[in-house]
């Protein structure tokens, strides 16, 4: 099987996998990085969001073999100040979408450390939360460095 070479959270991984496997499946099933969630598996909900070279990307519709940049998952963001900001703001209910929310938010604040409410709403609109934690997520991002 063709090999996938991945730079993931700063480490190198080499995995044999069939062409067609998604990055999300590779992360979860082959590498055991289950912080990245699959909720729709077709690019509509954002639960599977990872960063590739810092850019939020839907790993469930990204072919693992096509990845060229450095991949950052929630496992690589566990020391990010956003984690505590989410906890403090109660920006989590069931928590299934939350890792994806944090990955998107981390890219947002990296590019724009003081986003406005409108900017947050624009850049976070691809991460669906069925529990409706959005106001808390907004608060967490507004106060992520506090």
């Amino acid at each position, binding site marked *: 099987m063709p090999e996938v070479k991945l730079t993931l959270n700063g480490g190198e991984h080499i995995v044999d996998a069939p062409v*067609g496997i998604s990055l999300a499946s590779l992360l979860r099933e082959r590498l055991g990085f289950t912080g990245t969630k699959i909720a729709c598996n077709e690019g509509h909900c954002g639960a599977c969001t990872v960063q590739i070279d810092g*850019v939020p990307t839907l790993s469930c519709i990204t072919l693992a073999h096509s990845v060229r940049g450095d991949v950052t998952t929630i496992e690589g963001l566990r020391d990010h100040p956003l984690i505590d900001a989410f906890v403090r703001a109660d920006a989590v209910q069931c928590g299934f979408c939350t890792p994806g929310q944090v990955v998107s938010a981390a890219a947002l604040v990296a590019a724009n450390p003081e986003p406005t409410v409108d900017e947050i709403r624009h850049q976070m609109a691809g991460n669906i939360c069925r529990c409706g934690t959005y106001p808390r997520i907004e608060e967490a991002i507004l106060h992520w460095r506090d």
Partner: protein
Amino acid sequence: MELLRPSSLAELDGGLAIHGGTEVVPLLRDGILEADRLVDIRGIVPRGIDGNVIGAGTTLAELEASTAIPDALREACTLAASPQLRNMSSLGGNLLQSTRCWYWRLGYPCRLHRVGEGWGDRCHAREGEHREHAIFANDFCASAHPSDIAAALLALGARIRTTKRELPLEELYRLPDEANRDIVTLDPGELILELELPQVEASTYLKAMDRKRWSFPQVGVAAARRGGEIRIALAGVAPIPWLLGADGLDGATPLPRTAWKIAVAKALVARAAARLQRP
């Protein structure tokens, strides 16, 4: 399945082209597209903005962030899809996306799907559930083209350069018919490389959605003024991006549950035109 990553046009040798993958990957999974060979064309399609020329490999997010492109295109990119999809999707891929018609997406044997050796012989939406479908040219197929960006570029009068030729954007699209079910005129293997935009004095894109973000257009209206003339194109109203003719929306042929789109389109067309009048 194999995945090739050519670094020059000369290395191209058949296969299904894939760029951001946001359309191709789900369609492959659904069996609507089939391929033994995928060709990652990110290494060969130009990316970036150079004056009035835009590489087809430029992502929607990059366009959204650019101040060097006309308002209509930037606004269309801003209102398109979700942030992650805008990060992944290329301009060229966006122009070539398929309809969101649920019958088509679910593989109903409709006129745009192969059935055995031939093609489907009915439009399920016409007699079925079509409240998000077309109000123009919906006789043969009632699907609605979902590209905000195509409508913007159509209004802007964009030209595209492919691996074979140059053509105005309107010639990229064709209405499907009994003899030919395609909605684009590209030959097999032909890739869009660049787009060229003429100078316009003003332009804008307005979009009706049922969420504030992350929705395909119910109706999208792009307008551009050039030499005092206003050109208007619509998304979500016909099987292809729709350049509004002289009779405007009076030429619409709505289905029973799509008539509401005419009211929306009329209002947005008037607003877009009004916006272009402002200094």
